[in-house]
């Protein structure tokens, strides 16, 4: 703390008087500065310094129930609300061939289909009257069932949560409703050009891999209610479940309730389908989808890294400099200097179980499609040609380190984050050492990882747009493969 800062602090703690303030309302404090504003020195945002921030990573408590289930708890009595989320190892990566969409559909119908004790209409009525909610969803690599409730309705809401986890009914009419919605979703999957481009890029980066498969009308129609029941039996058991609970609850009572709710829920040996490791394909590709729109959607990328990669931290710093936010090279050049786009960014999505993708994206008017694409590629390539500046490095590191605390601003975020670290098998000390690992990154590291992990000449490029209006043909970038949209008519 510099001396000016210290003075200010003193001034603050002395409690000053009114002057120009008008106060309103019963809860308003009598207030206002004693000294005249003119006498106060104002700080320069470029050079000002600050008092130290007191921050420790909040900890939740980890408890293992008798049946093997892991529970993380964090009490927070500020508001009369309790949040709870279950994580189970299951997901669309395990969908059997021919039944792609099974995990997602099971996730939708689990909650909506009611339980063996509480039929769906009754479940809906009871929860909504209490203003409680329970929802379920199954994504790529995790199944989640979560509840939110006012404290006074915790007991009943928790009981209904337990029923859904242990004995979902998959009511036939609700299963059919979920299927209809999935089919309508497929019919609508080509409405938004950005959605098309994202999907096609993912398919190009993970060809024939479970990470890029999408449900079809045929696969969704092939899924039976029996499949869903089997899915639930296979993956829903205590040793495959972790729970994050936060908010206004009593620790002892919560653990007692969870023990009781899941007592006698049988475990069985784990059995997960083998999912192949995504294969590295270093060939470039140019894909085009024709859409008559005034703006082209541009996506490019390739395979990236997973969470166990020791270069993760240097890549986070590189990400920030290349494509992270207003200060990034991509935004400054493509948006701010050239006015070619509203949205432009890039990022390595850190894979949790498999290597995630590197993706760069923008949208620009048809007439500047090739210009913006060229620029995007050359700015990416620029990262591999020379070291970043000291200023860029420091900005990136300071931003990542100083904004770290925002990951812990809510108790539900804290406890869910801690569950996810164990659920996905992050190394011990990942959070605790995160800022130090970022702080250690050097300019040489950034260049090294850019050269190792960015492959500007081996990217899959997807453009959705009206090629009649492009500034130059896409074949500038190589031989173009046309993708025709099957609108399932």
């Amino acid at each position, binding site marked *: 703390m510099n001396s000016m800062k210290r003075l200010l602090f003193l001034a*603050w703690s002395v409690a*000053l008087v009114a002057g*120009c*303030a*008008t*106060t*309103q309302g019963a*809860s308003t*404090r009598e*207030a*206002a*500065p004693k000294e005249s*504003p003119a006498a106060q020195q*104002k*700080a*320069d945002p*470029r050079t000002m310094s*600050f008092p130290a*921030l007191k*921050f420790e990573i909040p900890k939740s408590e980890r408890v293992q129930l008798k049946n093997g289930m892991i529970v993380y708890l964090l009490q927070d009595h500020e*508001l009369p*609300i309790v949040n709870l989320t279950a994580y189970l190892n299951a997901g669309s990566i395990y969908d059997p061939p021919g039944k792609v969409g099974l995990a997602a559909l099971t996730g939708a119908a689990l909650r*909506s289909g009611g339980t063996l004790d509480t039929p769906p209409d009754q479940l*809906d*009525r009871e929860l*909504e009257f209490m*203003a409680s909610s329970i929802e379920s969803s199954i994504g790529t690599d995790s199944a989640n069932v979560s509840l939110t409730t*006012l404290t006074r309705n915790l007991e009943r809401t928790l009981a209904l949560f337990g029923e859904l986890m242990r004995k979902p009914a998959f009511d036939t009419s609700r299963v059919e409703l979920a299927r*209809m919605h999935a089919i*309508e979703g497929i019919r*609508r999957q080509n*409405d*938004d050009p950005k959605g098309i481009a994202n999907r096609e890029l993912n398919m190009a980066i993970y060809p024939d891999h479970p990470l890029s498969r999408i449900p079809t009308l045929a696969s969704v129609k092939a899924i039976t209610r029996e499949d869903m029941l089997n899915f639930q039996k296979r993956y829903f058991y205590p040793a495959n479940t972790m729970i994050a609970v936060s908010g206004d609850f009593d620790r002892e009572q919560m653990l007692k309730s969870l023990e009781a709710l899941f007592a006698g829920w049988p475990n069985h040996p784990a059995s997960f389908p083998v999912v192949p490791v995504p294969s590295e394909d270093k060939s470039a590709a140019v894909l085009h989808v024709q*859409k*008559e729109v*005034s*703006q082209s*959607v541009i996506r490019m990328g390739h395979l990236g890294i997973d969470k166990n990669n020791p270069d993760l931290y240097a890549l986070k710093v590189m990400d920030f400099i290349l494509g992270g*936010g*207003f*200060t990034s090279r991509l935004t*400054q050049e493509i948006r*701010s*200097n*050239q*006015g*070619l*786009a*509203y*949205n*432009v960014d890039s990022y390595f999505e850190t894979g949790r179980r498999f290597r995630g993708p590197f993706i760069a994206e923008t949208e620009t*008017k048809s007439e500047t499609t090739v210009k913006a694409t060229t620029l995007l590629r050359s700015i990416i390539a620029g990262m591999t040609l020379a070291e970043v500046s000291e200023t860029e490095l420091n900005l990136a590191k*300071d931003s990542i*380190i*100083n*904004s*770290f*605390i925002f990951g812990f*601003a*809510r108790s539900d975020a804290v406890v869910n984050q801690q569950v996810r670290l164990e659920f996905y098998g992050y190394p011990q000390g990942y959070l605790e050492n995160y800022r130090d690992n970022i702080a250690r990154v050097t300019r040489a590291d950034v260049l090294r990882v850019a050269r190792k992990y960015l492959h500007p000449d081996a990217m899959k490029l997807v453009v959705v747009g009206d090629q009649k209006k492009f500034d130059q043909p896409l074949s500038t970038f190589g031989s173009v493969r046309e993708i025709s949209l099957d609108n399932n008519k």
Partner: protein
Amino acid sequence: MILNASEVVMKIAYRLAILLVLSLSAATAFGEGLADKVQEYTLKNGMKLLMVPRHTSPTVAAWIRFKVGSVDERSDERGLAHLLEHMLFKGTTTLGTKDYAAEKPLLEKIEATAQQLMAEQSKGELADKAELARLTKDLDLLEKEAGKYVVKEEFADIYARNGGSGYNAFTSKDGTTYIINLPANKMELWAAIESDRMQHAVLREFYTEMKVVKEERRRSYEAEPEGKLWETFIADAFNAHPNGQPTIGWMSDINNLTRTKAERFLHKYYAPNNAIMAIVGDIDPQQTINLVEKYFGAIPPGTPVPPIAVEEPPQSGEKRTEVVGDAEPELMIGFHKPTLPAPDDYVFDVIDMLLTNGRTSRLYKKLVQEKQLATSVSAFSAPGSRYPNLFIIDASPRAPHTVSEVESAIYEELDRLKTEPMTDKELQQILNHLEFEESRQMVSNGGLARNLTEYEAVAGSWRYLIDHRQKVAQITAADVMRVAKQYFTRENRNVGFITKK
């Protein structure tokens, strides 16, 4: 991440509108809780400061809302409030520049050249092609020259270095809001930057940013069929009131905005008397008051935003808006209604929840579960809240069912509201939901800051949030029937839909 300087249009007008309704209906307050927690302070220059100390984490959400939005634009200013929102990221006389004294004359040349170019362009076919080319080239060179003095994105840079998170802004029909979350020890940085921005903004890189806004328009409204339906539907619903104008402006509006117009708008309205601040998080209110007094206390007030004189005349017959597009059908039905805090607006909040809140709601049960005509249905008030607006029902038909089948089914339910009284249990469920929402809105610093600035601005006081549930509790089954009969008429109806090409 949202990397967009302005989640404007669709987002504020539509998605936020949805959020708004959730929190409108919902968000009301913590009867005693919120009333006890909010501390209010008004500076002599008229600036309102709302504070909620919360010590869950050493972070603070700081929102500044200017009570001037796109409805306050004249016809030759359409899109200006939003463009200004972007421009206020470009720095001041000291930040964002290496040497303002050297930069300033270039900015003036740029403005003169841009205006000449626009004048020539406005001749259309008769424009002198050579002159257009010359002016375009001059403008480009001048912008490059001025660019040498620019320190790129310095606000964002300073905030980022200091751990700022979620630095952004949005514009709506009603206002413009600037957002940042900061570590709690950085509040003086916020005060220094934001007070500088309020007094000394320089609208540099104006004509390049205009291109960015045009890309934003293409992205949100032209290339996205739902965005196009939204914009057209709202424009068609209002014959007279500027609520119908797109916040981002039509493309030709944006093309004709100038830095001169933007500065006039800026200097008139972006002043403390039109500003509301919400500071929520790990703060000491007394220290915060001192800090705000120190940095903002001496800023002179500007012109109060005058009320809009024009009133939307009563609609005398159904209006139908068709958008033919490369997308599956969507349906929107809107009825003109008064806005908050009119008594009937509370009744609409009840109707909204009866119709679409949750799986037990009337429209969800009927359209989605029983008749299976639609995959989703929602309701909200839009496009703004300062002036009379629309109650809108939005549904996605499920093939092979058509827009008109969904439409008829919705009308059947609306007619039921006119004749079948709401039950006590339905009202109790709504009140329980509002009780939950009163707590939920306080879960995040940002969410609470949003509600405080929004309702202080549009309802006249954040205390709207405290009174809302009690007001709703007094609504009777007869009120719901009366309002349904009065407003859900064919004459008062606007119907918008996408027809697949």
